[in-house]
C-alpha cells in the first residue's frame, strides 16, 4: 500500500481517535493523580500501638511534668502531665516542641575534639582519656584551683556530681549562671540569712504587686505562673504590674504602672515609706525586725518621700500612695521581684527592697504570701575522700564571686587564672552581658570541655565536646525552684533511647572521675549514674520511681523567718545604666523565645511575631514620640557604649518614651538555619554593671542612641 498524504492523515487521525476512546488516557490520568496523592518525598509516618510515658521537662527551671505519647517506642508528642503538682496538665510551647531538640540533626552526635578551627569526631574512650590526662597534668602542676566549671544551677544530682568532682579535685571555682533561683537565695540571704530560698504563693494571693516580674513571660515556673495568673479571674485577685514596657503581663494585669527603667528599687522603697508613714504595716511582724528598723524607716522618710520617689521613678506621687494603700490593705498581698524572667541581671537593692514590702505587710510564711523555706536538701551524697591536693586547692578563694567577676578576672590578668574549664547546660558566650568579653575570656582558657548536646556559641569555643543526652533520653532528678511555693522533685526518664552517640552527663562525670584515679575515683564508686541517682535520692527514691515525683513541701512553712534590714538601711546606691546617650535600651523577655540554656526550637520561632523578627532582622520597639526621624517598619542603627546593631523599628505606644525595647533570645550564631542567624543578641549591646555591695551584674539596660540606617 502506498502511503500518500491522505492515507497518512487518515491513519494519524485514526490513531488519535483510537487512543482517545481507549482506556489508556483515563488510566494515565487516574494514575497520575494517585501518584500526586502518594508522592514518595512526602513522609508517611509509621503507625503502631500508642503508649504514654510520664517524665519531667528540664528545659527551664520550671520543672513541669510531661506526658510523652509514643508510637511503637517512637515519641511523637509531648504534652503536660495531668495532676502533676507543678503544672497540672499544662505545658509551654518549648516543652511541647521538645522532640525537635531530640531529633535535631544539628545536635552534637558524638564526642568531638577541636583540631585547629574544626571539630573532629573521637571515641568516648579517647575523649575521656584526653580530658582526664589534661586534668591530671593540671593537678600535678600544683594548681588544681585553676580548674573551673560553669553550670546552669547548683541543684540536682548532676550538679552535685560536678561539685563533688571539683571538691575532690581541689578547686573552689565552681560557678553557676545567674538564675532566678540564685537571686532568690541571694535575696533570702540578704534579709533572712543563709541557706534559705523564697517561694511565692501566687495562686492564693489576692493582690500581686509585680515589679516587672514577667509572670506570663516565663518568670518563675512558667506554666504554674500561667495557671495562677489565669485563676485570678475567678478569684477576683488583682495584679499591678510595674515596668517601663507594656509586656504581656502588664497587658493582662489590672493595672500597668509605667516606670523609668532601673528605678523599681526606688519605687519599692517609696511604697515602703508610705506604708510606714501611714502606719499600714503589720506591727506584729515588724516587731522582730533586726538590722536597724528605725534607721531604715528614717532613711525612707528622708530619701523616699512620695514626691522624691515620683521624681526618680516617673510614677505619680498620688499613684504611689494609692498603690501602697491597696497593697497594705489587701488580705493576701504579695510583692514579687525579678524583672522579666528573673534570670537576667538583677540588683540586690531592688530584690531586697521589693521583698521588704512583703516583710512589712507580714505576709511571710502565710497562705497567699511569700514562703521563706530552707534550701531543698533531698540529696545525700556519701562523704568525699579528699587528698592533700584537694584539701589545699579547695580551701583557696574563688577567682571571682560570680560569673562576671570571673570573666573580668581572666580578661584583666595576663596569664589566665583558669587553665581548664567545664561547661554544662550553660551558654555564657550567648547569655551573659557583653558577649564579646566573655568570648575573649574563654579564648584565654587553654582547655575547655563542653557537655552540650548542641554546638552552641560556647560549645564552639570548646576543645572537647562530650555530648549529653537531651532530657528526653536521660534519667535525672529535677528539683523545682524558681519561686514555686511548693517544693517538688521530679524524675526525668529516658522515654526515648539515645538518638546519637551521647551520654548522660552524670555518667560522663563519673567516667572522668574514675579516669583521674586516686581519691577522686574513690569518691565516685558508682557503676553508673543510675546507681548514683538511686543512692543519693534514697530518701525519696520510691516516690520518685513510682509516681515520677516527690513533694518535699507544700503549704506555708511553719518556722518563722527572721528579718534583717541592715542591707537596705544604709540606702545603697541604685545602679545606673552605663553610658551617656539619650535613650535607654532594655531587654524584653518574650515567652516564645529562650534566652538562657537551650535555644529556641523551629516550632517556637515559627510562633514569633513579625513585630519581633522579620526575615533576618530583629525588630525593636520604640514609642513614636521618641522615634523622631525614624520610619515605622524602617531600618535603624542602635549604638550603645559597647556595640552597634542594625535593626528594624516598630512604633509601639506600649513603651515608655525614651526607652528602646529589644527582645532577648535572638541572634544566635551557630549552624542551624531554622533558629540561628536571625536578629541580634541583645547581650552583644549591653555590658555588665556591677552593683557595689552585692557584686551582682545589675545592668537593667544600657544608654543608647538610635538613628535611621
Amino acid at each position, binding site marked *: 500500500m502506498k502511503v500518500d498524504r*491522505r492515507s497518512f492523515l487518515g491513519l494519524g487521525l485514526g490513531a488519535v481517535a483510537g487512543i482517545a476512546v481507549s482506556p489508556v488516557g483515563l488510566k494515565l*490520568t487516574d494514575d497520575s*493523580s494517585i*501518584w*500526586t*496523592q502518594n508522592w514518595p518525598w512526602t513522609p508517611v509516618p509509621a503507625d503502631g500501638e500508642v503508649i504514654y510515658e510520664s517524665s519531667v521537662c528540664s528545659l527551664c527551671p520550671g520543672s513541669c511534668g510531661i506526658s510523652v505519647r509514643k508510637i511503637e517506642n517512637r515519641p511523637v508528642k509531648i504534652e503536660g502531665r495531668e495532676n502533676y503538682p507543678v503544672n497540672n496538665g499544662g505545658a509551654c510551647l518549648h516543652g511541647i516542641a521538645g522532640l525537635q531538640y531530640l531529633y535535631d540533626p544539628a545536635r552534637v552526635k558524638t564526642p568531638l575534639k577541636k583540631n585547629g578551627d574544626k571539630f573532629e569526631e573521637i571515641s568516648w574512650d579517647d575523649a575521656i582519656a584526653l580530658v582526664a590526662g589534661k586534668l591530671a597534668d593540671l593537678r600535678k602542676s600544683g594548681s588544681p584551683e585553676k580548674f573551673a566549671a560553669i553550670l546552669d544551677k547548683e541543684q540536682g544530682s548532676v550538679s552535685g556530681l560536678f561539685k563533688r568532682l571539683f571538691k575532690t579535685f581541689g578547686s573552689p571555682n565552681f560557678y553557676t549562671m545567674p538564675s532566678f533561683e540564685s537571686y532568690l537565695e541571694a535575696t533570702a540571704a540578704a534579709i533572712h540569712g543563709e541557706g534559705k530560698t523564697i517561694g511565692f504563693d501566687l495562686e492564693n494571693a489576692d493582690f500581686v504587686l509585680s515589679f516587672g516580674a514577667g509572670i506570663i513571660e516565663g518568670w518563675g515556673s512558667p506554666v504554674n505562673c500561667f495557671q495562677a495568673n489565669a485563676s485570678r479571674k475567678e478569684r477576683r485577685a488583682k495584679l499591678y504590674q510595674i515596668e517601663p514596657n507594656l509586656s504581656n503581663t502588664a497587658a493582662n494585669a489590672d493595672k500597668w504602672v509605667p516606670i523609668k527603667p532601673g528605678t523599681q528599687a526606688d519605687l519599692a522603697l517609696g511604697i515602703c515609706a508610705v506604708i510606714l508613714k501611714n502606719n499600714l504595716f503589720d506591727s506584729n511582724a515588724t516587731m522582730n525586725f533586726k538590722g536597724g528598723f528605725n534607721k531604715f524607716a528614717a532613711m525612707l522618710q528622708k530619701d523616699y518621700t512620695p514626691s522624691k520617689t515620683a521624681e526618680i521613678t516617673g510614677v505619680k506621687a498620688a499613684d504611689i500612695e494609692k498603690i501602697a494603700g491597696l497593697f497594705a490593705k489587701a488580705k493576701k498581698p504579695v510583692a514579687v521581684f525579678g524583672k522579666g524572667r528573673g534570670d537576667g541581671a538583677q540588683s540586690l537593692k531592688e530584690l531586697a527592697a521589693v521583698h521588704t514590702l512583703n516583710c512589712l505587710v507580714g505576709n511571710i510564711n502565710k497562705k497567699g504570701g511569700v514562703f521563706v523555706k530552707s534550701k531543698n536538701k533531698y540529696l545525700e551524697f556519701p562523704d568525699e575522700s579528699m587528698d592533700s591536693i584537694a584539701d589545699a586547692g579547695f580551701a583557696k578563694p574563688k577567682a571571682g564571686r560570680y560569673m562576671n567577676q570571673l570573666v573580668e578576672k581572666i580578661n584583666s590578668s595576663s596569664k589566665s587564672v583558669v587553665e581548664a574549664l567545664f561547661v554544662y547546660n550553660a551558654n555564657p558566650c550567648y547569655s551573659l552581658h557583653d558577649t564579646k568579653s566573655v568570648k575573649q575570656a574563654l579564648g584565654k582558657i587553654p582547655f575547655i570541655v563542653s557537655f552540650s548536646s548542641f554546638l552552641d556559641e560556647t560549645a564552639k569555643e570548646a576543645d572537647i565536646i562530650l555530648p549529653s543526652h537531651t532530657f528526653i533520653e536521660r534519667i535525672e532528678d529535677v528539683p523545682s525552684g524558681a519561686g514555686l511555693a511548693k517544693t517538688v522533685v521530679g524524675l526525668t526518664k529516658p522515654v526515648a533511647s539515645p538518638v546519637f552517640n551521647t551520654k548522660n552527663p552524670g555518667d560522663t562525670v563519673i567516667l572522668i572521675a574514675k579516669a583521674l584515679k586516686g581519691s577522686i575515683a574513690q569518691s565516685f564508686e558508682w557503676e553508673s549514674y543510675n546507681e548514683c541517682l538511686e543512692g543519693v535520692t534514697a530518701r525519696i527514691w520510691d516516690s520518685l520511681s513510682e509516681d515520677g515525683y516527690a513533694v518535699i513541701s507544700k503549704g506555708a512553712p511553719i518556722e518563722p523567718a527572721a528579718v534583717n534590714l541592715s542591707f537596705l538601711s544604709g540606702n545603697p546606691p541604685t545602679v545606673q545604666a552605663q553610658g551617656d546617650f539619650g535613650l535607654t535600651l532594655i531587654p524584653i523577655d518574650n515567652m516564645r523565645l529562650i534566652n538562657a540554656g537551650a535555644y529556641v526550637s523551629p516550632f517556637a520561632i515559627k510562633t514569633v511575631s513579625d513585630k519581633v523578627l522579620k526575615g533576618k532582622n530583629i525588630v525593636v520597639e520604640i514609642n513614636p514620640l521618641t522615634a523622631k526621624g525614624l520610619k515605622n517598619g524602617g531600618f535603624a542603627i542602635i549604638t550603645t557604649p559597647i556595640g552597634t546593631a542594625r535593626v528594624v523599628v516598630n512604633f509601639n505606644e506600649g513603651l515608655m518614651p525614651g526607652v528602646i525595647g529589644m527582645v532577648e533570645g535572638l541572634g544566635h550564631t551557630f549552624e542551624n538555619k531554622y533558629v540561628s542567624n536571625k536578629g541580634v543578641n541583645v547581650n552583644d549591646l549591653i555590658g555588665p554593671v556591677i552593683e557595689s555591695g552585692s557584686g551582682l551584674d545589675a545592668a537593667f539596660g544600657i544608654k543608647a542612641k538610635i538613628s535611621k540606617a
Partner: protein
Amino acid sequence: MDSALIPEGAKRCSFPKFAIGIVIVGAVLLWGVFAMGLIWWKGLNQTNMNDYYGFALWIWADLAVIAVGGGAFFTGLLRYIFNIDELKNIINFAVIIGFICYSSALLILAIDIGQPLRGWFIFWHANVHSMLTEVAFCLSAYFAVLTIEFIPNILENRQANKVPFFRHLAHNMHGIMAVFAATGAFLSFFHQGSLGGVAGVLFGRPFAYREGLLIWPWTFFLFTWSAAAFGPCFTLLITKITETITGKKLVKDNVVNLLAKISGWMITIYIIAKIIDTIYWATVTAPSLGFNISHFYTNNGFYGYWILITEILVCGLVPGIILIMKSTRENPTLRLIAFILGVIGICLNRWVMVLQVMAVPVMSFDTWALYFPSWQEIATTILPVAYGIILISVTYRYLPVFPQEAELNAVEPAAETE
C-alpha cells in the same frame, strides 16, 4: 514558499519576513513556557502569591481574557440567532479571538492550581454549589463550542478544502452553526455569570459580596452583561490592530460601526446597572455588615477611590457614550479611544473583583495586604499574549478569516462582487 497554503487572491508578506516575526514572538512564548515549566516542576512557591493572595495575577488574567473573549459568543449570538447578517464579516475573527482567549484561560487555570494532575477532580468530584464548578463545566464546554465554530474556518484553508470530506464537513457545520451558537450563548451566559458569582457569593468578603436573585448574586448578571458589552470592543480593537499591522482594511466600516453601536448600548446599559449596584452595595449591603465604603478605598498605598472613578466613569460611561452617539462613533480616532478605554475598563473591573477583594482586611485587627507578582507570574501571563499573536498571524496568513478582505484589497481592478 508557502503560497499554496495562502488563501486565493490574498496578498501576504514574504515567508522569511513572516518567519522572523514568529520567531521573535516565539521567543517571548518560550520565556513564558519556561516559567510555566518552572511552576509545574517546583510548585507555586515560584509565585509571589501567599495565603492572603490565593487568587492573584493569573485569576485576574483569566477573568480578563474570558471577559474580552466574550465578543465571540455575543457576536455569534447576534449573527446566528438574531440573524444580523453583516456580522458574518467579522464572526470568524471573533471566534478566533474567543478561541485564543478561552484556550489561554484554560492554560492559566492549569498553571494556577496547586495540583495540576488532579485538575480533573473539579469535574469528577464536582460540588454543584460552587461557582467555580459552574465556571469549569461551562468554560470547558464552551471551549468545545468555540472549537466547533473554529473548525469550518480551518477547513476553508485552500489545501484542506480540497479534501471533499473536509469541504462537506465545513459546509454541514455552517449549516447548523446556529445550534452551536445557541448552545455557546447558553454556556457563556452561565460561565461568564458564574465567574461574576465567584466573587459575589463570598459572604465572608464584604467587598465582593452582593445580594442577588435566587442563588445568583448581582455580579453574576453584571459579569455576563459586561462580557457581552465589552467583548466586541476587544474584537474590534484587535481587528484594528491587525489592520494596522497588515496595512490593509479587512472589515468594512459599516460592520465595525454596527458592532460598535451595539457594544455602545450594551456598555451604557451595563454601566447604569453597575452604578446602581455600586450604590446599593455601598449604602445598603456593606453597611449592613458594618462597613463604610471608605473602609475599602482608604488606608492603603494603592486602592483608592480613583479606581472606582476610572472603572465606572472614565472606562465605562465615556466609551459607552462615544459608541452610542453616531458622530463620535463614526470618528475613527474617538471610536478607537472608546475601544481602548472599554477594554481597560473591563480588565480593571476584573482586577478589582479579584485582587482588591483579597487586599481588603475584613477582621477589624487585620491589615491591608498588597502584592506584586513574581517574574514567573508575569511571564506566564504574557505567554497567552504571545500565543495569541502567533495564532492570529498564522490564521490570518493561511485561512480566509476576513470575507471582505479580497473586496477591500483587490489587487487588480475589482472583479464583480456579489
